[in-house]
């Protein structure tokens, strides 16, 4: 970005017409927010930004650019959290060009200054868009994490026997979570049997099978016997046709069958009262 003459002159011009420009800019922005923010709040926000823009243009200090970027990022983040669309935020920033143009329109000698200023503001507008995207992505990934946490319970079926009923998909992120919860529960309860129930797992393909094998492998390192239950007829056929081999891991059709097996292995028997 050019320093010195052109931008210096623009900085002076903006300083001289601060009230008028910020006022007009605020009006334009408020028209776009449709009542979600008050005029005073907008004036304050934009006034701060305006001051930073002037400082950057006048090349006065080294910190100005960093501060302007930080200020814009904060504006994008708070607008995103308040539910504004990225276009609204970007347009709000870009509309300063219109506010300035209205004043500068009749001053031919300011054209090169205005062009440079316009380019600078365009960059700022793009930056708000990028900031917005990053914030939304963060919100979505936090929500995904919460959903995964909630849908991965580990239950105690009996002394020394725990079960993990899996529902939905089993991708690598989910597998990590399942492994962590299963192993932590094994340690906490001192269990030596784990039943992994896949009745609720929609698709069982080679990848899912590998994730299951990994989970069993990890549980075995903590000394647990593992059984996979919930093998539905179609799933059984898919597994065989894909050539997946569960090796020496016991597999059962239902959770009840797996519980019976675990009890037998634990030397327990269920008898009528």
């Amino acid at each position, binding site marked *: 970005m050019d320093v010195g003459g052109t931008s210096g002159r623009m900085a002076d011009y903006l300083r001289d017409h601060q009230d008028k420009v910020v006022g007009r800019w605020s009006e334009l922005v408020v028209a776009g927010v449709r009542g979600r923010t008050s005029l005073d709040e907008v004036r304050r926000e934009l006034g701060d930004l305006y001051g930073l823009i002037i400082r950057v243009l006048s090349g006065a200090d080294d910190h100005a650019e960093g501060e302007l970027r930080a200020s814009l990022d904060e504006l994008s983040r708070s607008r995103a959290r308040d539910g504004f669309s990225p276009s609204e935020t970007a347009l709000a920033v870009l509309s300063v060009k219109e506010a300035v143009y209205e004043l500068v329109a009749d001053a031919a000698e300011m054209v090169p200054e205005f062009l440079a200023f316009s380019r600078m503001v365009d960059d700022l507008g793009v930056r708000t868009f990028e900031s917005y995207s990053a914030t939304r992505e*963060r919100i979505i990934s936090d929500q995904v994490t919460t959903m995964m946490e909630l849908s991965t319970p580990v239950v105690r079926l009996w002394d020394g026997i725990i079960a993990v009923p899996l529902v939905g998909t089993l991708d690598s992120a989910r597998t*990590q979570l399942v492994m962590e919860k299963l192993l932590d529960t094994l340690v906490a309860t001192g269990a030596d049997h784990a039943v992994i129930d896949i009745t609720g797992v929609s698709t069982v393909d080679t990848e899912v099978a590998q994730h299951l094998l990994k989970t069993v492998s990890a549980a075995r390192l903590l000394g647990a016997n593992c059984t996979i239950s919930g093998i539905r007829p179609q799933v059984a056929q898919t597994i065989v046709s894909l050539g997946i081999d569960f090796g020496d891991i016991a597999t059962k059709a239902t959770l009840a069958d797996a519980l019976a097996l675990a009890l037998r292995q634990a030397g327990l028997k269920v008898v009528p009262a």
Partner: protein
Amino acid sequence: MDELRIRSGDDVVRVRQQVRNAAAENGLSLVDQTKLVTAASELARNTLVHGGGGVAQIEIVKSANGRTGVRLHFTDEGPGIANLELALTDGWTSGNGLGLGLSGARRLVDEFELNSKVGAGTSVMVVKWSR
């Protein structure tokens, strides 16, 4: 950035400890810390045993969307790896393969870059991001 020399078994232990500290201080979960330190252990050992000694560098990095990560760099001026593809295949679960532990280390990290030139040396760069 921290730079540690790798010239002995004790140095490998020191690298593990430094990497553990860096990972813990920068928001990596316990499992991710363990994975990163284990990968560092593999790579540091390679540097010592196959590379004739070298250097480890530990850096904290930031991604475009604001996440923090730990970046490790292992370099040596040893004989280099002749067959990179073979070195990166899973061959050592049963104790076979080149035993370089590179393929395992790769699975433990988020980013992995290996450069090696026969007669000149090897450099491995890995990154693990906080979630």
